[in-house]
């Protein structure tokens, strides 16, 4: 028994999972209705939209780079989709494709500038965050364009009871990207590139292409998640996703991803996202006053991460 507990808890993603479960148990005791069907449903509705962004941001962080422009892409891609379909007369699927292509292009530019001029991706994507947001505002003319009825919401957000179809997309991405990250050679290259770029390059990995791939993946997922939100709200708002970049990085870091690259896991991304959403939801359920709300969020986040580390250390000390 002990050796199994030790082996499991020593893995950062498992200890994070245990920590998440403890936090959930805590809320279940503290906040009535926290575990009610309705609330679980609401939490699961909102989960995929942040979760999909975290997948991309986290994988990019493993490859050793940042993306601060995800929040802006989260707004731009659906804006393009809505305008293309509603105003420029594209076929709905072509409209969706157009939004995603623009997201991919932003990712490519992020990567290309970062690598070609070897400037920190923090600067590139910070600049891009401003630029892309500005384009979203200009395109919308400042106002949310009307949501075209041609865009059927079924594929993205139809209500399936406990969750929406967006959850299926999330699960699909998580499985595909989890396999990619942990089981394919491409995943190995991503870890190697972020873990020790020189070593990876010396072993013949084209770290430039690996990084650009991750930048594009990250942007693509942010755009996709933005579309899901837009379908749910039925409105393409230029302010969508403001502040999302910090939230997504925070989720990845809470899930054990290293800011310096080379370390991270799919389970970690999921746990990190879940923790952020659960804390937010639990505190509202607990009827925290407006002025103290952020205090509680901050304190609980730090506490959860400390708990995680403590669990892992305890496990490692077992013999």
């Amino acid at each position, binding site marked *: 028994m002990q050796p199994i507990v030790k082996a499991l808890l020593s893995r950062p993603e498992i200890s994070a999972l245990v920590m998440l479960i403890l936090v959930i148990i805590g809320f279940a005791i503290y906040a009535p*209705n926290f575990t009610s069907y309705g*609330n679980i449903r609401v939490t699961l509705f909102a989960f995929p939209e942040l979760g999909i962004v975290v997948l991309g941001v986290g994988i990019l962080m493993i490859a050793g780079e940042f993306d601060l422009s995800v929040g802006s892409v989260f707004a731009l891609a659906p804006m393009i989709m809505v305008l293309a379909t509603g105003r420029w007369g594209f076929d709905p699927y072509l409209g969706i494709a157009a939004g995603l292509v623009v997201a991919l292009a932003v990712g490519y530019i992020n990567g290309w500038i970062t690598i070609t001029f070897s400037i920190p991706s923090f600067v590139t994507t910070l600049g891009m965050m401003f630029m892309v947001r500005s384009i979203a505002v200009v395109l919308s003319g400042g*106002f*949310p364009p009307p949501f075209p009825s041609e865009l059927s919401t079924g594929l993205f957000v139809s209500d399936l009871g406990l969750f929406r179809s967006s959850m299926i997309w999330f699960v699909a991405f998580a499985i595909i990207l989890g396999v990619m990250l942990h089981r394919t050679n491409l995943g190995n290259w991503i870890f190697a590139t972020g873990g020790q770029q020189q070593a990876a390059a010396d072993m013949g990995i084209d770290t430039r292409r690996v990084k650009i791939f991750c930048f594009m993946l990250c942007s693509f997922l942010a755009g996709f998640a933005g579309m899901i939100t837009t379908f749910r709200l039925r409105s393409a708002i230029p302010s969508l996703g403001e502040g999302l970049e910090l939230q997504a990085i925070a989720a990845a870091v809470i899930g054990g991803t290293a800011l310096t690259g080379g370390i991270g896991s799919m389970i970690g991304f999921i746990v990190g996202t879940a923790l952020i959403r659960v804390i937010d939801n639990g505190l509202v359920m*607990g009827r925290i006053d407006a002025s103290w709300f952020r205090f509680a969020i901050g304190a609980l986040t730090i506490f959860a991460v400390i708990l995680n580390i403590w669990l892992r250390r305890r496990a490692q000390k077992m013999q």
Partner: protein
Amino acid sequence: QERFTYLLHSTPTNVFWQAVKLGFDSACAQIDADCQMVFLQQDGNFQEQLNNLEAALANNPTGIITTFAGGNIFDEALARAEEAGIPIIASNVDHPDGKYRLAYVGQNLETAGYDLAKALSEQFPAEGPIHVLIGVNGPGQVWSETRARGIQRYIEEMAASNPDREITFERIDAGLDLALVGQRVAAYVQSTPTTAYFDTGYWHAGAAVSLRDLGKGPGEVLLGGFDLVPAVFDEMKSGYIQLSVDQQPYLQGYYPVHELYLLNNYAFPAFDVDTGKALITPDDVDALLELSAQGIR
């Protein structure tokens, strides 16, 4: 040629301010003025607004329009502007003491909150306990806190005048994002039976989406808030939103320009305009939809 600068305390992505900008731009076009509207990078970052004001003054404009969401932080700079003879109009949020500006074009935030709560309370159930949720979208930000205070004042008065009924309220940090506000209101409604939700901005539209997700019918939780954006119209038509205060942002951009123009060219003194009278109900929606699509209402 006139050169006017409009300074405000919000970001370009805030839909409300795009309507102000539209009014501002069209007024400027009418008189062929050289106009600039300067937004912030971060909501409520007032020192940045002051920096922008100082930069604008260095450009020697023929008129300044500004919001006073930061209270009297501009006093010193405006005293200099006054000395230099640059006319100043307050818009959207007035100077706390009504100083340094020739006139105010906008609504009274506290009164607007009070009026909204009062109007919506007519739809509260006649019997039983009342529990009201107030969404403070920006805790510590004047525009949000003041509206919330107005709403709160009415609810407290109502409770005081109905001592036999249980009338309570609670404030949550609702956030400044349509999706986030929706999630938080939904979570709250799960845990506590709620009569009505008041938003201090237009984000009650997000609450409407989430309430539908929860399987609540229109009117099960009454929704009221401020400002008209397409999402609010949609949810008014669907019956989820009962009431919205329209402070007519277009006018907040439009009138100050003309007031400055008339003042500078014909010495007409500037005058206050109360733009915040309109309480919009679902019945008004169809009439407004056309103008709304153009961003005017």
